[in-house]
Each structure stands twice: as C-alpha cells, then as structure tokens.
C-alpha cells in the first residue's frame, strides 16, 4: 500500500486575465495560419478528376517513378534529366516552352492562330485541324492546350477536343532551338501538295504507345472505325513520358519485396540479379536491345485482336519478353515478301518507302532498333560478349564516373563516357587499335579516322535533321548508285565525284568500282544528290553541307549558290535545312528568309540572296567543273537543268 498522498497546496488566487494572454495569442496565431493555409489552397484539379485529357493512373502492377526515387536517387536523377522523361508532359509553365501571352502565330494552317494565357492555363484559337468536311467551311475553334510532346527540338502541343479524353494537335509547332513557330506540316518531310492529316484522337490512338509508360488508348471501337464524337474514350497511362517501368517493367512486386529492410540489404550486399525486377543491362544483347526496340522500331499489331487487347490493357510486351511474341517488327531487308509486309503494303502503299531505303534498311530516325538488327555486328555476332546491342554504346543512367553533366550526357544521345569515340568499336575490333591509320587511311585523330563517320554516316532523317545510320555498314559507291543512299565518303568529301570515291575504295580496300554514267564521273556526288535525288536525299545532302567536318574537308564557298537554289525546294523540310546550313557558311551573304513563309516572299528572299551573292565583290567561289561553277564563277545551269530534269519527284512522306 502506498502512503496516502498529501493534498497539494492550493495556488494563490490570481487574476484570470494575464494568464489567458498566451492562450489567446496562440489561438490567434493558429487561426492566422489556418486562414493562410486555406486561402493558399491549390485549386488545380487532382489528376484522377481531370476529364478532358488522358490521365496518369498507375495500376496493373505499375507504381510510377515517384516510388523509385527514394531507393534509387542517382538513377532517378539522371533519368529525370533525360529527354525520355519529357516525351509527353502535362502542359504547365515548366513544360510549355513557347510564349502564349497574347501571341499571334502566322506560321500555321489557315488563319493566324491566337494564343493566350489564362492564369495557369494555355489557350489557343485556330482553324479546326480535325475538321473533315469541306475546307472552306472549316470552323474556328478555341481550345485549351493540355499536353506537350517533346522538349529537346520541338514542343508539339495537344489540345483538349472537348470530347471525353480525346486530343488533337495544334496546327503549329514550336521549334525550341530556333525559338519560332512553324506550321505542323512544315516540320514533317511530306509532299508539298498533300495535306498532313491532323486527326482528333491521334495522340490517344498512336502517339501514346511510345510517348508514355503503359498507355491504354481505351477507345470503345477501333480508331477511325466510326465518328470520333460517337466513340467513348477513357485513355489512361501509368505515367506520362518514358519512365522507369518502361524499361524495368512493372515494379509493384519489387517494391513489395524490398519494403523489408533485411531483404533490401541482402539484395544490396549479394552480387546477384534481383528476380523481382528486370535489369535490361543484364539481359542478353538481343533481349536488352528489344527493350529499346519496343519504341525505337517500325512495328505493327499482328491482327485486330492484338490492337483491341492493347487498346484495353496497354501493350502486352514487358521488358525481358521476346518482342516479336506480341508484335510484328518490320524488317523488309529480310521479310519483304512475307504475308505481314504484303498486308501492310497493301493497306498503305507508301509503308516501305516512307521508312526504309530500297534495300529494306531503315532511313528514318527514332527507329534505331531496325538499323541494329540489320547490322552485321548484331546479325552475324557469334557470342553475346561480341554482339552489338544498344547498351554497347548507350547508357540509360549516367554512370558516376562520367565527368559530363546530366544535361551534356542527355544532349549527346545518352552515349556512355568515351563511347562517342573509336573506343565504341574497338571494344570488339581491338586489333585495329594497333595501327588505326592502316585501316582508316586517314590521319589519326582526323574526322576521316572516326569509325562513326565511315560506318555510321548521317543517312537517317527525322526532326528536321539527319542522324547517324544505326545500320553499321562500310562505304559503298555501288549502294549509292543502286539504292540512292549516300555513301560516307561523299557525305564528307562533298566536292568529290562518285568516280573519285570508287577509285579510292578500289585502291585502299580492293572494292571494285561499279559502272558509272558520265555525270557520276564528272559532277560532285553531293550535287547529283541535291539536284537529282528524292526529297529525303536532298535533305540529307543539305544537312551535310552544314556539317563542320565536311565543310572543313570540302570548303564552303562553292556550296552557297547550290544551297541558295535549294531555298526554292518544294519540300518545307529541305528548305529549312538548306537555310540552316547556309547560315553556317561564313562566305554566304545575310539570309532574311522564312522557310515556312508565303511562297512569293520565300522566292523573293531566295532571289535576293542569290543576287547578293553574285554581286558580292569579295565573292571568290572555288571554281571547278565538278562543282558546276564555270571559270567565271557562274553556275553551269545547263548541267543543273539536266540533273533536275532527272530528279526523283515521286512524292515522299518520311514516317519519322
């Protein structure tokens, strides 16, 4: 028994008012804070309540990158700095790069597009691109921009169609580097006399596959099978942009397993693959490259059933799977006569030409997996260790020992440290290291001794520029003649003929010279491509004329009139690239030219430019018959007309 407690002494009576002051102050302060919190409440609609655009709703095992960050902060940080993350974003002040504040855009289809900011929202008034009736009756609409695609070269804006979650694209695109608008059709290499379809629901049905993580189109009936406004559309994604789970697969099981710290530390300390998640770099080169190939390839559903399945549940491919189990990856170089390719070509006669060279190898950017699988380094490799895969050169997370910043790494195609040099190839072709010059026949360290420049030339096209071909090949004049594909030698030695290249290849590598016609023997290959070639070839050549190594080797003064002539090309993309290259040539007069402006203004600007060049007293172009400049420095118009007369004018729409 504890002793009885003594009663506490009674406190002396105090006046009530002073003791209440602190309490009153505390209550007042709390009320003030509460009011502050209430008045600053963020009024933006929660994601799950947004009704007019696709929403991010991770499920089916997907958990979103937010969940990955706490355990993998380094990987998260480098992914966050990559352009994969920003493939598609909700339109916000951070993601919208263009000025919307009371801006009028004349580079557009139809009447000028008017842009405005309303608080945090972006609005546009424009001619309805989704209108499928008579063009003269195309209505004017005002819509909210809700999503953005791209953050590196272009911002493409998607507006809410005001029909469920359906989106369509603004008729103009913002070019980030140039800080200007251009009409949507002008930034795609497509025939000038054909309108570019901009269809309601296009993003939901097409773009979603490779611009989001586990997107579900969720159209009640197949896209375009009935009127858009009659369809029920409930498009959702696990996450906007290409996020962790695009490459590692759904992570719910991994998260659950590693919530236990003992399990987590055991996994950290043992050097063994984690069975709860896919680590693409630990897969064999075929499967690991397919992780990239799920987006970087030309593919189609095997049948309508596959399309419906993906429509309802998202694409069934998961990293580590065999990609071809669930989709058809087109490879016309080997399966041109297959039923699947025939069916695709029947449904779309331009299917092959829009993406592939005549030999079936890929010619557009963003589909590098197609290039890889046609490469001997992949196709003919004997062991996994000596098989070229995407991760042979690229990294999805910047390694700790890479001295570059995340933005530098992201801006150089996420190649690994040192993999932008010959080291990339010497990983397998080690014997060449001992005497590189004997193999390259160019001075060590020169642009001609770069493996990339000879075996991965800039012959793929996309986003108003060329990118390196990912079909590893060796320079071939025969292919240039037979397929119309530029060879690496003449993409650098722009001032030399095909005959010159054939002679060098024969002398150095015993490659027999193919039969060449008179022009191929006497006119620089670049000029034949620029004058005779299809629009894709003209774009590639125009770009090469702005490429610093080629300019250093070939000189630039002679290019000015030829690029000046290309300012009058029918294809917007060719004009854009020609103008850009001209601005990189020091001998070129100032160029006041809008590739996307009205045709009379363009023509006047091009004529004015060429006149300024011709009348420039300091003009001293290199004069040589193969450069189509006579001894007086004047263009050899007769030869140019003859070559243009043979131009491949077949309409070309490159499906980049």
């Amino acid at each position, binding site marked *: 028994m504890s002793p009885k407690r003594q009663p506490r002494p009674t406190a002396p009576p105090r006046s009530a008012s002073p003791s209440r002051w602190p309490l009153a102050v505390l209550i007042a*302060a709390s009320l*003030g*804070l509460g009011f*502050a*919190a209430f*008045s*600053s409440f963020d009024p933006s609609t929660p994601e799950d309540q947004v009704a007019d655009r696709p929403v991010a709703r991770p499920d089916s095992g997907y958990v979103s990158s937010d969940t990955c960050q706490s355990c993998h902060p380094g990987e998260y940080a480098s992914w966050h700095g990559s352009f994969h993350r920003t493939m598609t974003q909700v339109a916000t002040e*951070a993601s919208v790069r263009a000025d919307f504040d009371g801006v009028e855009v004349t580079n557009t289809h139809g009447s000028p597009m008017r842009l405005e900011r309303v608080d945090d929202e972006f609005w546009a008034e424009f001619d309805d691109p989704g209108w499928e009736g008579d063009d003269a009756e195309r209505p004017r609409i005002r819509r909210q921009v809700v999503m953005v695609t791209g953050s590196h070269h272009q911002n493409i804006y998607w507006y809410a169609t005001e029909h469920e979650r359906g989106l369509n694209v603004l008729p103009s695109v913002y070019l980030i580097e140039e800080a200007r608008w251009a009409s949507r059709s002008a930034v795609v290499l497509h025939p000038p006399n054909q309108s570019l379809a901009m269809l309601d629901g296009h993003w939901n049905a097409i773009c979603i596959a490779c611009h989001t993580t586990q997107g579900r189109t969720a159209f009640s009936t197949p896209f375009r099978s009935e009127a858009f406004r009659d369809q029920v559309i409930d498009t959702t994604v696990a996450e906007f942009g290409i996020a962790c789970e695009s490459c590692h697969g759904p992570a719910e099981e991994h998260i659950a397993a590693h919530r236990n710290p003992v399990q987590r530390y055991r996994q950290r300390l043992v050097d063994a693959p984690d069975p709860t998640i896919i680590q693409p770099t630990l897969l064999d080169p075929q499967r690991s490259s397919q992780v990239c190939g799920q987006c970087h390839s030309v593919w189609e559903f095997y049948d309508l059933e596959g399309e419906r399945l993906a429509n309802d549940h998202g694409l069934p491919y998961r990293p580590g799977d065999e990609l071809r189990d669930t989709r058809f990856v087109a490879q016309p170089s080997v399966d041109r006569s297959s039923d699947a390719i025939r069916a695709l070509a029947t449904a779309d006669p331009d299917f092959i030409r829009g993406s592939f060279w005549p030999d079936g190898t890929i010619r557009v950017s963003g589909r590098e997996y197609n290039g890889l699988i046609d490469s001997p380094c992949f196709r003919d490799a004997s062991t996994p260790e000596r098989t070229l895969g995407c991760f042979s050169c690229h990294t999805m997370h910047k390694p700790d020992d890479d001295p570059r910043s995340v933005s530098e790494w992201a801006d150089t195609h996420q190649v690994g440290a040192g993999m932008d040099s010959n080291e990339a190839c010497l990983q397998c072709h080690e014997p060449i290291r001992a005497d590189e010059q004997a193999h390259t026949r160019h001075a060590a360290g020169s642009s001609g001794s770069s493996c990339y420049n000879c075996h991965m030339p800039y012959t793929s096209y996309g986003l108003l520029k060329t990118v390196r071909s990912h079909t590893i090949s060796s320079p071939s004049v025969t292919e240039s003649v037979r397929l119309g594909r530029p060879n690496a030698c003449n993409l650098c030695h722009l001032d030399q003929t095909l005959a010159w290249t054939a002679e060098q290849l024969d002398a150095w590598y015993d490659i027999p010279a193919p039969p060449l016609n008179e022009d191929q023997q006497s006119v620089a290959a670049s000029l034949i491509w620029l004058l005779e070639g299809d629009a894709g070839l003209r774009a590639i050549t125009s770009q090469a004329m702005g490429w610093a190594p080629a300019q250093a080797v070939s000189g630039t003064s002679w290019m000015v009139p030829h690029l000046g002539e290309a300012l009058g090309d029918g294809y917007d993309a060719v004009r854009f690239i020609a103008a850009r290259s001209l601005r990189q040539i020091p001998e070129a007069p100032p160029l006041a030219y809008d590739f996307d402006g009205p045709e009379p203004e363009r023509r006047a600007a091009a004529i004015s430019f060429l006149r300024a060049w011709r009348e420039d007293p300091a003009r001293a172009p290199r004069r040589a018959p193969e450069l189509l400049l006579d001894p007086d420095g004047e263009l050899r118009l007769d030869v140019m007309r003859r070559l243009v007369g043979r131009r491949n004018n077949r309409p070309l729409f490159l499906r980049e």
Partner: protein
Amino acid sequence: MRLGWWSLALFLSLGFLLELLHGFKIGFYLDVGNEHRRLMWTLAHAHGALLGLVHLAFGFSLQAAPTLGSGRQGLASACLMGATILLPGGFLLGGVWVEGQLAALGFLLAPVGGALLAAAVFLVATSAGRTR
C-alpha cells in the same frame, strides 16, 4: 542566459515567419529557383534556435561548475555571442541576396560565425576537461 532566451525568441519567430511564407505560398520563398533561399533561411532558423540553447547550456554549465572555463569564460562568452550573430545572420543574408557581393557577404559571415562557435565550444570543452 538572457541572450539565450532572446535568441530563442528571435529565431523561433523567424520560424513562425517561414511558416507564414509557406502558408501564403510566397513565390519569393517557395518558387522553383528559390530553393537556395529556402535552405539558407531554414538553416538560419535552426542554427539560431540551437545557438540559443547553447547559450542556455553555457549559462547552466557555469552555474553547475563555476570553475568551468576559469579565466576564459569572458572570451568564450564573447565568441558565443559573436557566433550567435554571425552564423544565423550569415545564413539569413545568404538567403536575402542569392547573387552578387551581398550574397558573398552572407557566405563569409556564416563560416566566421562557425569558427567563433568552434572556438567558444573548444574553450569550454577544454576547461571542462580540467575541472576533474
């Protein structure tokens, strides 16, 4: 002791002010790009409040062990007072001006305050060892 309590009062008030900046979503404090200011002022708040506690601990220590820091209490006290002004003050200034010479002033004051604090604590700690 008095300085400790006043320091606590001042830097707890700063904490209250930072709460208000949060509450009213003041862009000057919260917007993307102002992370540095947010960090500096949070550090000023935390270091100021803790230095108030160190003052109190110093006062209590002297009461409990009057021989503590014998002969050097004055110097330790002066160092501590200097640290209480310069360390949180430097953080505060470093957050007011995030660029230019005044920002550099903030960067200069805080380490000086840190050094003074280290000196003060060292003086007391060494004499605490000698009280045995």
